[in-house]
């Protein structure tokens, strides 16, 4: 009884005070409860893919949003994870439960390599140079078709679980765990350093931060998460093909990231959960099916014209305000800050827009 009351208190005081936290809770509970309420295989399939891509998008955000290393070749890590795991389980006959970790580990190494090569680059140079890496890997795969399966990729992989529900839970739970871990990491002191590197690398180095080490580390972490997603993807679809390394996938993750709002972690995840099912759903209509990528692109363009900072920050600013004194967030309906009691509404008429941001 005590624990129930304590949990309820925590919920009331920490979660329900902020609409964004309430939304996140509803999302988590909904995600976990969905198969029990509505076990349609098609819906589960789409949501499994959505979860896998959500890991991928969140890992891009840690690298591009927080650290400012806008990676145009993030598909490299996804593809390396997929191919490593697929090849190992197929050629060595290992269980997919093991090879997924191997895929993530090799992706981590590739992240170290790319990070090392890109240490001296910054800004647009880095973006355009990173675009090259997955294409180099793709060229190598096509040049050795005996090993990699060439255009067809390696097929006939084993699934992690037999039932759709089992696969869904694997994807959903690993997504929740990885996204939460990335969010914790980004919110910690480590994340603060990443913000500093993005905003002014020279100043960060002058403050005694070994920016090179941090950049390498963040490349490795993001790559490991993306490689894990890639390995899950390969074993879920039972094929690791060249599409995991294509430019289209690299661009796709950039679109998710920026559409959702960079440097938030939850933004790109929300973007995947909106955009991916949307495009899949659109492809159900025969008339629209051919146009789904077009509709996707137009939606992205329109959303950007109205909320250039991305979807999640825009929504957050609509439903919450920031306390001008203690910088904590409050629900829109509050007139005084819930923590320090400072008035949230502007005291001088017409100065409303100066408060908060």
């Amino acid at each position, binding site marked *: 009884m005590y624990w129930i009351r304590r949990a309820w208190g925590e919920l009331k005081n920490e979660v329900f005070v902020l609409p964004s936290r309430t939304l996140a809770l509803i999302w988590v509970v909904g995600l976990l409860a969905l198969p029990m309420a509505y076990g349609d295989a098609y819906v589960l399939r789409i949501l499994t893919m959505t979860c896998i891509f959500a890991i991928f998008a969140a890992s891009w955000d840690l690298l591009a949003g927080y650290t400012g290393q806008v990676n145009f070749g993030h598909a490299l890590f996804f593809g390396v994870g997929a191919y490593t795991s697929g090849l190992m389980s197929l050629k060595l006959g290992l269980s997919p439960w093991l090879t997924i970790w191997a895929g993530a580990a090799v992706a981590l190494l590739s992240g170290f390599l790319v990070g090392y090569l890109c240490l001296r680059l910054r800004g*647009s140079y880095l973006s355009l*140079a990173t675009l090259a890496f997955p294409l180099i890997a793709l060229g190598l795969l096509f*040049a050795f078709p005996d090993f990699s399966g060439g255009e067809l990729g390696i097929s006939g992989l084993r699934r992690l679980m037999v039932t759709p529900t089992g696969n869904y839970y694997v994807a959903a739970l690993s997504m929740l765990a990885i996204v939460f871990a990335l969010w914790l990491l980004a919110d910690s002191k480590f994340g603060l350093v990443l913000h500093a590197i993005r905003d*002014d690398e020279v100043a960060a180095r002058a403050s005694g931060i070994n920016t090179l080490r941090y950049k390498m580390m963040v490349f490795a972490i993001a790559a490991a998460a993306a490689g894990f997603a890639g390995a899950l993807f390969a074993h879920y679809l039972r094929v690791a093909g060249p599409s995991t390394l294509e430019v289209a996938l690299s661009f796709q993750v950039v679109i998710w990231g920026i559409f959702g709002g*960079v440097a938030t972690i939850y933004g790109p995840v929300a973007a995947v959960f909106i955009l991916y099912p949307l495009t899949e759903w659109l492809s159900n209509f025969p008339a629209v099916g051919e146009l789904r990528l077009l509709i996707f692109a137009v939606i992205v363009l329109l959303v*950007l014209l109205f909320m250039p900072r991305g979807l999640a920050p825009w929504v957050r600013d609509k439903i919450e305000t920031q306390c001008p004194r203690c910088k904590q967030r409050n629900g829109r309906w509050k007139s005084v800050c819930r923590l320090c009691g400072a008035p949230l509404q502007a005291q001088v008429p017409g100065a409303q827009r100066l408060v908060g941001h």
Partner: protein
Amino acid sequence: MLQDILVTGLVNGGVYALLAIGFSLIFGVARIVNIAHTAFYMLAAYCFYTLLTKTGLGFVLSGLISVGAVTLFSVVCYRLVIEPVREHEAAVLIATIALALVFQELMLYSFGGHFLGIPSTLEGSMRFLGVSIPYQRLLILVVAGAMLAIVWFVLYRTRLGLAIRATANDLEVANLMGMNVHRVAMATVAISVSLAAVAGVVVAPVFVVDPFMWLSPLVTMLAIVVLGGLGSLKGSLIGALIIGYVEAITVFAVPAGAYLKGAVALLIMVIVLLARPEGLFGVAFEEER
């Protein structure tokens, strides 16, 4: 084989130079990484194809009309899509990606995904140093040379060119000196896209036209621009020739070279970047704050 390499490298280098210089120009002046650049090249090729096969206009006329139409269209796109989000660098980036996807899907929807062939605009070939060069490829080379000369003239001998170079050098100071930087940016967009459109029109008879033809030159173009140094025109020209020759050598001299040509070109870019992070002719920018 040596002659083949020499000629192919030069012709491909010419096309890449047209694309890369346009991209470089717009990055230098407006700081826009225009992913849709080669999508305009694809649009021009489709426009040329339609005019040529449906209306029966001559080669020259349909070529000129396609370049003009695509250039005009690009300015409209710039005003409607890019300009409203100019302050947000990330938003500009994804806006250009989305634009390219829109074009690709529109072409896919209206023309279908299959390859379209355009009849050669010039028949016959000439022999030069023992290799036969089709006139079509010679035309690409001549047009590329002429366009480069025109761009050089506009940039270095006209007042507009002076304004463009000044804006590329320092946007704020150029603005303070009374140049209308918005109009300069628009003019740059027009010039740069017209270069891409010219490239699209001249290569259409040699390559096949399909909705995904913008992807592979996009990657090569980005490699060239980074190799030569972002925003440097001389670097783009030399980078285009380097990559053109490297691709030709890989295709002719290495087994399974056709698969590897992109990878080798990109590898060269990575190596150059390791030695000189700002590219061959790029200026090492002061830390921008």
